[in-house]
């Protein structure tokens, strides 16, 4: 299936994970990583599946590359009811009040426009012991399996 990995990044960590996911998936799927800074609300394809990798920066804010997209999305009347997505969030529990707010913000925006979230949002903790790059591809494969199951049930 076709998978678009959208990433919102400030220091490059989410971009690295998006590229890891694409390299891991591309032997079996058509996969592409796209920076949210190069993506607009009208670019979503009906029936499409999107993996979103997004960090949190500063005081619970979106990372720089996701900000213009989020602003456009908030203004947009795009109907995403045929769109499915899953979210891999990056955060740091050292800043517990705003932990993973960025990924939640994006997930809420997509859901508000009618998109369907598959699986629970994964919230990685940079101060924890797991390495995000160990988790990203297994997570992506699990989410792709959910998307394939959903597609076959719909067919």
């Amino acid at each position, binding site marked *: 299936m076709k998978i678009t990995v959208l990433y919102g990044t*400030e220091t490059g960590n989410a971009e690295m994970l998006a590229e890891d996911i694409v390299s891991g998936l591309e032997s079996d799927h058509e996969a592409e990583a796209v920076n949210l800074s190069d993506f607009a609300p009208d670019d979503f394809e009906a029936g499409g599946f999107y993996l979103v990798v997004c960090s949190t920066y*500063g*005081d*619970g804010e979106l990372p720089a590359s996701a900000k213009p997209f989020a602003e456009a999305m908030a203004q947009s009347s795009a109907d995403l009811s045929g769109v499915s997505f899953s979210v891999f969030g990056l955060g*740091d529990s*050292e800043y*517990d*009040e705003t932990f993973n707010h960025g990924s939640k913000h994006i997930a809420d925006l997509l859901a508000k426009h009618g998109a369907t979230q598959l699986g629970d949002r994964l919230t990685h903790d940079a101060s924890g012991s797991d390495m995000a790059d160990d988790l990203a591809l297994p997570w992506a494969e699990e989410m792709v399996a959910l998307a394939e199951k959903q597609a076959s049930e719909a067919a």
Partner: protein
Amino acid sequence: MSASVAIIGAGPSGCFLAQALLKANPELKVDLIDRLPVPYGLVRYGVAADHQGTKGITRQFERVFERMGATFIGNLTVGEDVSLDDLRACYDVVVLAAGLPGDRSLGIPGEDLEGVIRAGDLTRALYEHPDADPLPTLGKKVVIMGNGNVAIDLLRILGKTPDELAGSDFGAGPSAWLAGNDIETIDLVGRSAAEAAKFDPEMIKELSKLSGVTIRVEDMGTAQSDEGQKKLDALAAVDGHGAGPRQLTFRFGLTPAEITGEDGKVTGVRFQSASGDVAEIACDSFITAVGFAAAGPLGRDELAASADDLAAGALAPGLYATGWFRRGPRGTIPENRADAQALATRILADLDAAGADAGKGGRDSLMAERTDLVDYAGWKRIDEAETADLPADRTRRKIACRQDMLALALQKSEEING
């Protein structure tokens, strides 16, 4: 096009530049040169030891060496072991990304008194930089001058209990020093009004987790901007926090005029407020965290002054600068990443324009004779030793001595030395 590129400084700016260059053109031969036997610069020696999440960007940098083909050349000081001119003769492109390792001084009387401590000297000692001086004695009353993130890092670290250092990479020596000091008060003094303070609000909010302190904010004032209001909100949120024995006090709008002392040792600092009032704060030590400046053999300020186009990072044909070395000591990791990415675009365009003229041999002609250079495999041996058999509450145990680093790193390092 397989031009050769030498980046001086393997800190975040240099690594982000190598990443951007190699992403755009995997054929480039990129060498990251550092005067230390270890890479990552301020990620290792400047990002606070209790901010391990921020250090996660090293996962990206590891790939620059392990997958994208950049070469690490450690333990080589440009300007001493090899001249900048010789380097330029060997490489098509040379980029200065060596940061600003010096501490800015206040320029007031008394700065040479014992007990006046520069933040860069203190953080190097706390984070076990191989060139660091021993950790100083701070005494009971500490004043920190400055209100940027480095000042807040020091305030937080000095305010933490030993248990609150869990999960950090503070070494045994600094941990024992932190546990053993007998600080009663820390005053953090800023020249600007609170709303114009340089810290990021989340750095202040983080202080609300400290269990061993009481926090007070004086002279909060009002805000003229949303940015300023966020800073005041963060300060208000921690004002009155805690009932611990260590008293942390924020003060604003005070310009230091003179450091006073007796018998060569600091006893206090005299400040002037905007309205001209004079305030004196007694202290046993005075830590200045008022920014960084050029230091070392590269002659940064002269190069910057004669640059073709400093804003674009172009110093002279084939010679570039990025990060703090270019811009001055402002901006955190994301700004330096953006700076490095912009410079990569510029360098690639210049190389394109040079066409077939690019083709200098790179390191071979310059370094074949040297036997003391540390390659990436050498660094990985240090890295492995530092992360093996760790105490449960630490993520790394740094090797603090250059000779010990080199002994490990040079066990077998044929790749770049011969």
